[in-house]
């Protein structure tokens, strides 16, 4: 049986190259994987191994010439009789079809290299059932391997672990690997924030989407100012605690691809409306996958508002190399003892995870106390704006 091998078939991914040396000549008997020819392609010399056992009938461009993709560079005869039970045809180069073996199995054309067919046979797979993803319906090695997995677990779905999901995983694993995570929780009264939020909304001439988040951002910045070691990172290479002078607040955002954290840069210079607007814009960009890389970098502290979706309490993972992260849980009406009376008020649990290598429990307890004071007197946060 005679095989025509083209550059693309054996020189995976190689589209064009200069033939620098032939190791074989017409009439030579070669073994599979024996080097046939050396091709030089931009900065890489590649020795192409023989794809089959057999005798060289013809070789392609001579040394010094350029070999192009699709060009037949070697013709090998394996000396075997053609199998009469299978309808095997080798297309001539003119038709520009892949020089692969085509078989008619139950009326379906099978296109696969001998290696892939051998693999399927070894794995006990009926190659006729494998779905081809290669060019022009060619069955690749990956297709066969995937099929073998699907065959065993047909009630499972496999999703490639790539892209955003993989980035999230790597970052979390790094955090879990390096950071000594510790946790503290506080219950805070949000009634006054709710009232103020509604007041601003009513009095505002602009149509703004004011959520609780800008108030948390404001309270966090005010509190970080009195606890500078929380707005920091640990540089393990130089062994420094790096105190950040800007307050770049990351907002954990849920998107279809998974969690992304857009960053409000220099949030200390922005008023509550500006913060609200920026959060909304970044969130839209994040959800539509249009977030610029620079808007996800340079964060100094992260807030995650898991409670907006649900959950009365949670333990967030520090967004390494930052040293602390604040989770806002579900804001809910609760009956409490407030100023001498039993009343229903808006309450929320705030949970803070921190890197215990850099911070101690007392540091973060003071920080949470400060946040509580700010949020229980939100007018004071607004005063910030005039000053």
């Amino acid at each position, binding site marked *: 049986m005679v095989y025509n091998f083209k550059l693309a078939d054996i*020189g*995976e*991914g*190689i*589209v064009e190259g200069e033939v*620098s040396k032939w190791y074989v000549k017409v009439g030579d008997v070669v073994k599979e*994987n024996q*080097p046939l020819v050396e091709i*030089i*392609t*931009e*900065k*890489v*010399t*590649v*020795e192409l*191994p023989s794809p089959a056992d057999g005798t060289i009938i013809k070789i392609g461009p001579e040394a010094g010439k350029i070999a192009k993709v699709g060009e037949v560079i070697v013709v090998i005869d394996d000396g075997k009789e053609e199998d009469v039970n299978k309808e095997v045809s080798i297309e001539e180069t003119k038709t520009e079809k892949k020089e692969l073996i085509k078989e008619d199995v139950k009326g379906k054309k099978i296109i696969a290299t001998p290696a892939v067919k051998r693999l399927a046979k070894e794995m006990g797979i009926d190659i006729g059932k494998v779905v081809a993803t290669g060019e022009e319906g060619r069955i690749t090695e*990956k297709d066969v391997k995937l099929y073998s997995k699907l065959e065993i677990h047909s009630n499972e779905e496999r999703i490639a672990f790539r892209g955003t999901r993989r980035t999230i995983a*790597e970052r979390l694993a790094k955090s879990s690997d390096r950071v000594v995570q510790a946790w503290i929780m506080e219950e805070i009264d949000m009634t006054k924030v709710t009232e103020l939020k509604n007041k601003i909304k009513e009095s505002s001439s602009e149509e703004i989407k004011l959520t609780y988040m800008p108030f948390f951002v404001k309270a966090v910045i005010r509190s970080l100012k009195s606890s500078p070691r929380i707005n920091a990172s640990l540089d393990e*290479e130089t062994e420094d605690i790096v105190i950040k002078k800007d307050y770049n607040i990351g907002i954990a955002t849920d998107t279809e691809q998974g969690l992304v954290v857009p960053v409000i840069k220099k949030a200390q210079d922005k008023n509550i409306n500006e913060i609200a607007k920026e959060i909304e814009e970044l969130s839209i960009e994040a959800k539509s996958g249009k977030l610029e890389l620079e808007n996800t970098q340079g964060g100094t502290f992260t807030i995650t508002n898991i409670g907006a979706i649900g959950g009365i309490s949670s333990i967030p993972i520090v967004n390494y190399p930052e040293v602390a992260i604040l989770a806002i849980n579900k804001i809910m009406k609760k009956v409490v003892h407030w100023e001498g009376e039993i009343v229903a008020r808006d309450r929320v649990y705030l949970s803070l995870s921190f890197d215990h290598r850099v911070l101690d429990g007392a540091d973060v307890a003071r920080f949470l106390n400060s946040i509580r004071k700010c949020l229980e007197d939100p007018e004071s946060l607004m005063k910030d704006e005039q000053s």
Partner: protein
Amino acid sequence: MNNLNIIDLGLTEYQRALEIQKTLVKDRLSNLTTDTLLLVEHPHVVTLGKQTNPEDVLNNSIPIIKIDRGGSATYHGPGQLIGYIIMDLKNKGISVPVLISKIHEIIILTLNELGIKAKRRKDNTGVWIDEKKIASIGLSVRNWITYHGFSLNVNTDLEKFNTIRPCGYDSQVMTSINSIKRNQYSEELVKKKIINNFSKVFEYNRIKSLGKN
């Protein structure tokens, strides 16, 4: 198998490092070892790849060796971080162009982490800072196992490029990390970052450090 061995050879003669690579290629082919990243520095040497134009060698004040990688003339010496890559492309499931692209990516990521904005050029392999070249790439592939790799100028004595026309360019084209960053970074730090980005970009999940490191 998605394991990577990292061998830090330190200062090693060019020929010795080449022998080690060839042994590793053989061992990789017979599956005696995993993919390997060899990190090394060479004493002063000029190597000529297969595409070298004889006019690119200006004088022979530095020992010259003709070798079987792609690319043309280059200089190696102390202060230059070299990564030789022994990788089974079939097993890794990547093609030669993807390999080259990923090597670029590793170097660019590393430079970015050091505050240097680097880029690749459409017309030319290697990593560039504006009009200057900071890293070179040249590889060989045998039985789908790679060897040779990349060189990155960290603290390289750039004057030494004067004996050749590196990759056909004027020798002034070369630059180094510490000529841009005023000797801020140690080779050890750059090495660490390279290892980190190499494992990440090529998605190795188990990494074993052998040798000096």
